[in-house]
């Protein structure tokens, strides 16, 4: 069936001149017409798609979760401004808002459908991530970061061990992820161990496993993280926290790939790539005899140093935008940017906690923000805000409430949002904290 059987030539010309994408389907859901804009948005030529099933054209998630035309057929109501997505000829997802209606014959029988769509400028966080130039989730466009991304790509064919150094909060784990994702082992298992989080007594059992009866609580055999990571990659965060007496076992597994489970004498073999990270100056640790030099050389085959945020302030603006979008989505806010005053404060601050601190600051500010359009100075944590004043005039009561909330939020932040712990510190009930946070969110 051709488009002319639905609509006259003159009307088709009008549809072709529209700024919205339009396509028409017949009652068999086959494309009979695609206008110029639809073809331009999708990059699909009408000649390649006419006569084919509509899902071959739009490849929308709506085809799976509920076709708009079907919805109209069921409900009898036209679809207006429905948020959806299409795929272009290269498979890239395009957010669109679409309208749909049914075409009927003289006897009121449905004979087809017409769908119009336009690009949706409101892009969600996932799409923002996909569309922006992040390197495996790492945000940064400064020269040092671009150099770092280049180096990660350069070593992608290597199986050698990696040592990542950098201050706390710079994103060592993100870099480890990127190294793993660009490596030949990207589809294989990736095990992460925070060596500082485990007590010395448990660490050996955690890394190498144990057999039943190896120690008092060993009621059954258990494999260790190295065995679990066999064939893949292990990330040993805060490697310098491993006690010196255990470092020789670690050296052996890294050097020879062999180890024994605790309480067992049979050696086992594994094939694991090691990525280690530390925020300490490992050379000083070696000098102080807290870290084995041979282990350092085994790990430091490919060294990566991530510069602190104060040395790459160019990235602050990208990071701020990134975190605003991330937390605006989480807290249901419409904030899209920060005002220039905030940016000035951020540029003049040294960020001892690096990217993690910046992220916490943005999350805190978004939770506290009373504005809907942008982040303003008054929502910043007191230690960052310093002497900056907000234009908003607050009453004495509002100031008092503000200060209390600030204290509460600062405590929560310091205590990893552990409400029970903060309730104990403040001597209040946990539910009171919930209530206060809820009230704050509503503002």
């Amino acid at each position, binding site marked *: 069936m051709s488009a002319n059987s639905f609509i006259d030539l003159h009307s088709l010309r009008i549809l072709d001149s529209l700024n919205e994408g339009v396509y028409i389907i017949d009652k068999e*859901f086959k494309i009979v017409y695609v206008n110029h804009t639809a073809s331009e948005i999708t990059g699909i030529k009408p000649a390649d798609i006419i*006569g084919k099933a509509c899902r071959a054209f739009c490849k929308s998630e709506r085809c799976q979760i509920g076709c708009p035309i*079907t919805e109209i*057929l069921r409900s009898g109501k036209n679809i207006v401004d429905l948020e959806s997505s299409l795929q272009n000829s290269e498979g890239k997802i395009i957010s669109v808002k679409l309208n749909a209606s049914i075409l009927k014959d003289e006897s009121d*029988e*449905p*004979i087809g*459908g017409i769908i119009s769509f336009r690009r949706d400028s409101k892009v969600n966080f996932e799409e923002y991530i996909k569309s922006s130039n992040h390197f495996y989730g790492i945000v940064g466009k400064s020269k040092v970061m671009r150099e770092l991304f280049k180096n990660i790509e350069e070593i992608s064919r290597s199986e050698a061990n990696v040592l990542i150094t950098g201050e706390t909060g710079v994103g060592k784990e993100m870099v480890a992820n990127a190294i793993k994702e660009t490596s030949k082992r990207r589809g294989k298992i990736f095990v992460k161990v925070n060596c500082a989080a485990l007590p010395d007594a448990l660490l050996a059992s955690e890394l190498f496993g144990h057999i039943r009866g190896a120690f008092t609580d060993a009621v059954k055999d258990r494999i260790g993280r190295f065995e679990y990571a066999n064939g893949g990659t292990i990330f040993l965060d805060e490697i310098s926290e491993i006690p010196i007496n255990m470092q020789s076992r670690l050296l052996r597994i890294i050097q020879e790939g062999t180890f024994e489970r605790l309480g067992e004498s049979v050696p086992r073999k594994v094939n694991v790539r090691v990525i280690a990270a530390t925020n300490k100056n490992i050379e000083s640790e070696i000098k102080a005899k807290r870290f084995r030099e041979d282990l350092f050389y085994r790990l430091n085959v490919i060294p990566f140093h991530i510069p602190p945020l104060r040395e790459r302030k160019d990235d602050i603006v990208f990071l701020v935008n990134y975190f605003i979008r991330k937390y605006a989505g989480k807290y249901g806010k419409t904030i899209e940017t920060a005002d220039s005053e905030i940016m000035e404060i951020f540029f003049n601050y040294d960020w001892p906690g690096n990217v993690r601190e910046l992220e916490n600051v943005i999350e805190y500010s978004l939770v506290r923000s009373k504005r809907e359009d942008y982040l303003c100075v008054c929502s910043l944590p007191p230690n960052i805000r310093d002497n900056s004043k907000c234009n908003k005039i607050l009453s004495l009561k509002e100031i008092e409430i503000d200060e209390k909330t600030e204290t509460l939020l600062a405590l929560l932040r310091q205590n990893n949002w552990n409400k029970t712990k903060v309730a104990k510190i403040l001597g209040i009930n946990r539910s009171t904290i919930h209530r206060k946070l809820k009230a704050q969110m509503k503002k």
Partner: protein
Amino acid sequence: MNEMLGNQYFMVRRYCDALAEFEEVYRKDPSNKPIRRKLIICYIKANRIDSAFELFTKLVEEDLEFIIKTDPIFDDCPCPEIIYELENSIETNNQDEKNLALGMLWLFCDIKNSIKYFSELPSDRIIDNILKKLQETKNHLKHER
């Protein structure tokens, strides 16, 4: 009754929902060949092989080529996937019913395989008639090429 809604259900392989819509359309317009073609498939999926065969026999009598000319891509025909499922299913209560369903479905894709399955069925007047018609069409198509 909504033919277009039935088509959508058929497209997303919701055969039972499609069947309900198509049956109504067919009742109102028994000459609607595209609907009859889809109804045969829906009946097979609903395990109503007798109903499918009744429609199939009529359509073969009337316009066999209409079934043969089905394009798996342009007509979004689900027969290849249904055939694959049926041919690989171990469980069968009735081998004749399975052969009958496969004979009908193969006609949408390949006349030779359709003949193969119909030949395996016990001979009777209707089956013999269909086989005769299929053989004639096959020879005719060979001749055309």
